[in-house]
């Protein structure tokens, strides 16, 4: 697959379809895979593709100007679709080199939870598609592979227990905002956390401020987050952030039958409505 990727990237650069390609590379001295920006044809050889390409490169699209090529997995493509729904992406300047991706692994080599329930091993939208020759090895499915099984444990808890659990997690937060900065859908030039008049979110890492920050973040991503899992990966204090966003995804899917990141023409759920929306909770 790697040669195909490099060949396609070289082609795009050669006939000036793009000025820069955002991809993955092995950083030279150590064994890490990191994002990279290729601007010349011969730089293409630095491109790599393995199971450590966990980064969602679409977050760079808002800063990199001009004609851009981007190497994207199925989940990354979904976030590009979500960005298109919110007028953040001009599709014509983007060339998507999509890769068939079986699964990515974390630092300990374990398959990421999100890949177990992934429906987009073959990305839904692309300009170029790189398929793997050999038939991909099926990841042996575990019983916990149901879409929202990750939530069951917490949902089973009682309300006070859940409050204790999340208070314990939010207490650890140091407000480094890595979860916000890594998320492709957190593109606001001025986040509400920086508002001082009124001061919606207390800026210091107090328990009250952290709780409000995490609630606002979860609500602002409701119906938009495509579960690329980057926020949970980058959180230095291991707060299970995916479990917040996944819960919102589950509720929105049950109530409004909407799955984010599949159709760039569709209106995101929280700016849309149907006359027969559920209202059993309203007196």
């Amino acid at each position: 697959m790697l040669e195909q990727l490099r060949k396609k990237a070289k082609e795009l650069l050669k006939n000036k379809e793009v000025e820069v390609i955002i991809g993955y590379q092995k950083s030279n001295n150590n064994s890490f895979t990191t994002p990279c920006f290729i601007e010349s044809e011969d730089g293409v050889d630095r491109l790599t593709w393995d199971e450590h390409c966990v980064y969602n490169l679409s977050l760079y699209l808002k800063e990199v100007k001009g004609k851009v090529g981007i190497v994207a997995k199925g989940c990354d493509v979904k976030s590009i679709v979500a960005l298109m729904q919110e007028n953040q992406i001009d599709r014509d300047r983007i060339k998507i080199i999509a890769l068939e991706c079986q699964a990515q692994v974390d630092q300990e080599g374990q398959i990421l939870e999100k890949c177990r329930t992934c429906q987009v091993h073959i990305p839904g939208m692309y300009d170029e598609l790189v398929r793997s020759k050999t038939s991909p090895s099926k990841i042996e499915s575990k019983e916990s592979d149901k879409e929202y099984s990750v939530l069951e444990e917490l949902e089973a808890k009682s309300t006070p227990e859940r409050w204790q659990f999340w208070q314990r997690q939010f207490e650890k937060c140091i407000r480094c905002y890595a979860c916000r900065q890594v998320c492709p859908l957190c593109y606001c030039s001025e986040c509400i956390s920086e508002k001082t008049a009124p001061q919606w979110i207390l800026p210091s890492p107090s328990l009250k401020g952290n709780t409000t920050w995490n609630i606002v973040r979860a609500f602002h991503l409701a119906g938009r987050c495509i579960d690329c899992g980057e926020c949970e990966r980058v959180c230095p204090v291991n707060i299970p952030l995916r479990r917040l966003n996944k819960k919102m995804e589950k509720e929105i899917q049950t109530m409004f039958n909407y799955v984010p990141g599949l159709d760039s023409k569709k209106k995101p759920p929280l700016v849309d409505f149907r006359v027969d929306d559920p209202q059993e909770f309203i007196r």
Partner: protein
Amino acid sequence: MARIGVFVCHCGTNISATVDVKKVAEIAKGFPGVKFATDYRYMCSEPGQDLIQKMVKEHNLTRIVVAACSPSLHEKTFRTCTQNAGLNPYFFEMANIREQCSWVHDDREEATLKAIDIVKLATAKVGKNNPLQTTFIPVEKKVLIIGGGISGIQAAIDVAFNGFKAVIVEREPSIGGRMAMFDKTFPTLDCAACILTPKMVEVNQSDLIKLYTYSEVEEVSGYVGNFKVKIRRKARLVDENKCNGCGTCWQRCPVRLPSEFDMNLGKRKAIYVPFPQAVPNVPVIDQKHCLYINKKKCGICKKVCPFEAIDYEQEDEVIEEQFGAIIVATGFTMFDHSIYGEYGYGKYKNVTTGLHFERMLNSSGPTGGKIVRPSDGKEAKKVVFIQCVGSRDEARGMPYCSRLCCMYTAKQALLLKEHNPEAEAYVFYIDIRAAGKNYEEFVERVQDEYGATYLRGRVSKIFQRNGRLMVRGCDTLSGTQIEIDADLVVLATALIARPDAIKLAQMLHIPYDQNRLFTEAHPKLAPVETVTTGVFLTGACQSPKDIPDTVATASAASVKACGLLSHEKLPIDPQIARVDVEICSGCLACKEVCPFGAIEKEEIVDRVTQQKRWVAKVAPSLCNGCGACNTACRPGAIDLDGFTEEQIFGQIESLTADKGNER
């Protein structure tokens, strides 16, 4: 820092009865920013308002809080007063300590504590109020009148008289409404046609009034001064300009159908004019029954028409027009009495309603003025009138009195006796409601001079016995049961709202009550207005009314509408949305949720990066100030003046100040 003045009103005793107004004023002095607080018996009175203006000067106050009644009553009053005191009218907030405090709590201690919280909330909000300037929008000098009955006609005439253009949209082929069906009118026994037809002609001839008959309002958008209305002109299949109403076509038309105008007592043709004095006097083809339309046979009307006015290919036409104000005059419809088993479930032909009787009374009606039994056409000597059929019947969900049935029944009894002196009229009633001018005298005359028998009691059963209607009831005044073998029974059925009233209400965004009658802005102070500025109500669509009241409200509504149109431009509420382009990231979630299409995207050059980017832009004239965009905007880049984030945040904070945010 704001210098706030708090004025606590006693409202006579409405507030001071359960709220210790002195203590509220005293405590208010301690609130942040409050520099002056007092209480007074009637803040909305002249001296009350003078007090405010005096204190503003004395303590150079910059913000005013009046703790009294609901803003829906006196917010305007005090805004003007604040302006007269030299401050921006929006530097004022009302604390509702009457409807939402003194009137709903009886424990004095609790009511006072709550009043204090409400005042604290108002002071917190007023401290954050921005100075808003009223902006103005042009006014379309034309009134839309929905409904062409007597109320629509009268309104149109008055609007034209004031020199403004009016457009009547009438669903039926002709204007005239219910009144056109009547024979005489009470209490003067004027002939309905004699007093209605000249007004119909006046409407038709007036060059300021445009008639869209056989048409319906389909869509209303925009707001006061700038309503955009889509009107569907249903295809008449007759060209109005060519036809002069000679009538050759409907005389030769072979299809005979029951005439709805004559309450199915008479006949009409497939191409017909509902009644002789119809305005416009242009027939309409009933597409459901016309032979040509359905089976491509006949087509006589087209052949005989001297002016080629018939056009079978005519299509519905939807036109869009701009209006400054809308007067709703859609009238009423009759209660369906067939749900009453006692009166025979509508099975007996001779059990009719007031409108059937009216059509029989009418000389140009189906019976030429003779009162007959619909079953066999024989003359009806013994007629029983039954009042309150549907009205005042809680069990049928109809609690209200339809106000005018007692009067038209009396009139009909009188006319029955006039048409045939030997005829006997019996009226079963609960209470006679004759409150208008010369009404009571009229009913007395019908009983004394014309010998109508009034029986105070309900009818328990009507049944048939060898061709005659046996009416069983009781007369509570004599305490006996009565059985009358009647030729004809006339039910005074209730006046109810049109079946599609709710659809129209939602189109116009006006509220309606549980009886689907449109709700006026205020039952006493604004009976012909609605909460939606620019939309007015007249006639029975608001509640059942007789002709005198209908004409009165029609004139009132037209004066209100013309009052609006007499302004060159209209002040619009400055409490609308505002975008902070520094923060806006151009996601346009606000544009998606805006019900009025008031938000568009705009390309600007970023101040810091000097690069082009998209941001949202609000069109002040279109924005109605709902604030949906505020919630949709994640970074909080769009704010709604009058209900800004800071104001609401300040209110929440003041509410929880005593809860102690100390840890």
